[in-house]
C-alpha cells in the first residue's frame, strides 16, 4: 500500500508542504501576539493597576475553547488560515504579557536609576535598557507560546482542513491509514522540539552578557584576586590624605 509519506491528494500538499504550512500557522500568531503584548506590557508596567485586569482578561480569553472562536470568526474570515490563527494569537497573550511585564520589572532599580541619571528619556530607556535586559524572560515566554501554538494548530482541521499537519489525523480516519496519524503526531512533536531549540539558540546569541555555567567564572575570580592583591599594599596613609 501507500507509504508513510504518501499523503492523500485531498490535502493538496506534500509532507514538506504541510510542515511549511504548519509552521506558518503556528508562528505568525506568536509573532502577532508578541507585537501586541509589547505595548500592552509597557502599559502594565507604567500603570501598575492595569496589570491585574489585563491578566484576568487574557486568562478568560485563554479559557474560551477554540471551537467557540471558530464559530464566531467563520462568519467574518471564512474557512481560512486566518480563522485558525486569530485564536492562537489571542492564546499566546496569556503567556507573553506576564513574561514581558515580569522581565521588564526585573530590571534592577539601580540600573534604572543610573539610566535616568545619565539622561535617558523614557522611550530610550525602555528600548535600550529595559527590553534588552528582559530578553531572557521574553524568550522564556516565547518558548511556551510557540510550543503550545504548534500543537494547537491541528484543531484547524475542524474548519475545512485548515489544520496543516492536523489534517493527517482526519485523513487517517477517513482512509483507515493509522500511519498518517502517527506521522502527524511525530512530526508535530519534532517541530515543537526544533522550534524550542531554535529559540534557546536565539537567546544565547542575544544574551552574551548572561552568566552561564561555572566555566566562565574562572577568569573573573582570577581578576578578583588581582583586584584585592595590591590594595593591602597601599601604605597606611589614610591619616595624611586629608
Amino acid at each position: 500500500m501507500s507509504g508513510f509519506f504518501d499523503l492523500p491528494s485531498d490535502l493538496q500538499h506534500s509532507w514538506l508542504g504541510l510542515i511549511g504550512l504548519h509552521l506558518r500557522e503556528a508562528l505568525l500568531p506568536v509573532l502577532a501576539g508578541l507585537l501586541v503584548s509589547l505595548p500592552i506590557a509597557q502599559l502594565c508596567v507604567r500603570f501598575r493597576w492595569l496589570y491585574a485586569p489585563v491578566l484576568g482578561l487574557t486568562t478568560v480569553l485563554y479559557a474560551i475553547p477554540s471551537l467557540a472562536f471558530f464559530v464566531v470568526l467563520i462568519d467574518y474570515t471564512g474557512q481560512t488560515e486566518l480563522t485558525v490563527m486569530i485564536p492562537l494569537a489571542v492564546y499566546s497573550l496569556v503567556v507573553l504579557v506576564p513574561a514581558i511585564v515580569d522581565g521588564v520589572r526585573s530590571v534592577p532599580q539601580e540600573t534604572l536609576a543610573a539610566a535616568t541619571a545619565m539622561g535617558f528619556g523614557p522611550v530610550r530607556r525602555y528600548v535600550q535598557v529595559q527590553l534588552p535586559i528582559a530578553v531572557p524572560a521574553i524568550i522564556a515566554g516565547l518558548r511556551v507560546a510557540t510550543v503550545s501554538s504548534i500543537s494547537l494548530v491541528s484543531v484547524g482541521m475542524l474548519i475545512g482542513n485548515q489544520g496543516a499537519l492536523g489534517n493527517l489525523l482526519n485523513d487517517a480516519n477517513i482512509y483507515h491509514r493509522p500511519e498518517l496519524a502517527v506521522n502527524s503526531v511525530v512530526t508535530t512533536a519534532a517541530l515543537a522540539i526544533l522550534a524550542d531549540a531554535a529559540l534557546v539558540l536565539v537567546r544565547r546569541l542575544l544574551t552574551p552578557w548572561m552568566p552561564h555555567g561555572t566555566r566562565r567564572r574562572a577568569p573573573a575570580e582570577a581578576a578578583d584576586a588581582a583586584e584585592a592583591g595590591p590594595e593591602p599594599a597601599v601604605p597606611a596613609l589614610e591619616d595624611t590624605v586629608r
Partner: protein
Amino acid sequence: MAESGQLLPDPKGVRRLIRIDTVTKRYPDGTVAVDRLSLEIPDRSITVLVGPSGCGKTTTLRMINRMVEPSEGSILLDGVDIREQPVNSLRRSMGYVIQNAGLFQHRTIVDNIATVPRLLGWSRSKSRARAMELMERVGLDSALAKRYPYQLSGGQQQRVGVARALAADPPVLLMDEPFSAVDPVVRKGLQDELLRIQDELGKTIVFVTHDIDEAIKLGTTVAVLRTGGRLAQYAPPAELLTAPADAFVEDFLGTDRGIRRLSFFGTEGLELKRAPIVTVDTTAEEVAARTDVDDDVPYLLVTDRDGRPLGWSEPAALAAGPVDVARLLPHGRPFRHGGESLRAALDCAVLSPTGWAVAVDGTGRAVGVVSQQAIGEAIRTAHAERTTGAAGDDGSTGGGALGDADAATGAEVAG
C-alpha cells in the same frame, strides 16, 4: 567667603557651584524627606552629605539632577536655576555613581563607560577611545574592556561606575553611597583612588554616605543631616570633630572623635631626639660616649649603615660588645615625620615595645625618636591652639574660625 553670584566661572566657562536654597521635599504620601535645606556647595571640592538612614541624603542628591523635584525652594548651578535647561542635558552634565554601580548588565564594560558620550552624539570610535582612557584613569586593566559586568568583582564594578560617570568629563559628580557595598579593604582603595582622581580633575563632587569615617576622610566640607531632613551642621571635618554643633552631631561622630581629630594635626612640630640613634657598626666606646649625652632615653635605636631602623637595644647590651641584630627589640611601625599625622605618631608610640615612636623621612631613614609623653604634649598644645581659635563661636555651625585650609569653603547654614 565665596558668594555664588561673585564667584567667577573657571576659564572654560564651566558651571560648577551648586546652591541649594531653602529646599523642602514632601513626597506625595506626606513624608517630609528634606526640610528647608540650604547649602552652598563649593566648586572643585568634595562635599559630603552624611546622616542616619532615611534622613534625606538620596533625596537631596537626586534633587540636584532633578530625578526628584523639590516641593519648595530652588537649586542654582552657578547662579542659574537648574530648571532652566532641558532635564536630560542637565543630567548629562552631571556624573552619577550609585551603590552596586548600577551597571548595564547587557553591555560590555567599554560600552557601559561610553554610554553618556554616545548619548551626547559622539562617534562610536571616539566614545570607545575615551572609555579606554578612563579605564586606565580609574585603575582598570584594559583587558577587562570586552567583559560583561557579571565577570567583574564588586570593586571593579564600582570602578567602572566611577569611570562611566566621568566619561563625558562632567563638571559635577553626584555619588550616592558608591563604596558601601564593597569590603573595607577594597573600599579604602576606592576612596584613595577617588581622592587621587579628584586631585587631578578638580570636579565638584557631592558625596552621600552614612559612614562618618568616610565623610571625614573624603570631605572638604561635611553636611550632617538629621532625621526629618534638617541640617545639623555644615563644616570642614576638623571643625566637626573639634566643635560638634549639638548632642546629635556629637553622638553621630562616635566616641573616639578626640583620637580621630589627631588625624588633622601634623607631626612636623614634634621635637625629635637624635642622640639615641646609633648605627650598627658603632663601637662600644662610642656608645658609651653618646649615652652620656642624653640619659633620659632608656633605649638606643640601632640602624643599619644607611640609617634604616633595625631595632631597640639597652645601652648596656651595646656597651658589652658588637651588636647582635637578632636580639634587638622590634621597633614597630615608624611614622613619616611631617608626612603623617599626630594620630599615626601616637599609634606608633603606643604599639612600640619601648613606648618610643621612630620617625623616618620619606626614604625610610630614621630621623629621630619621640616618646609618648612628648606626643601627648604636642597634642595638648595643638588642642589649645585650635580651641582658643574656635572658642568665640562655640555651639554655632559653619563659619568656624579654625585656621584650617578647609575653612575657606563658604559654609552657609540655615536652621
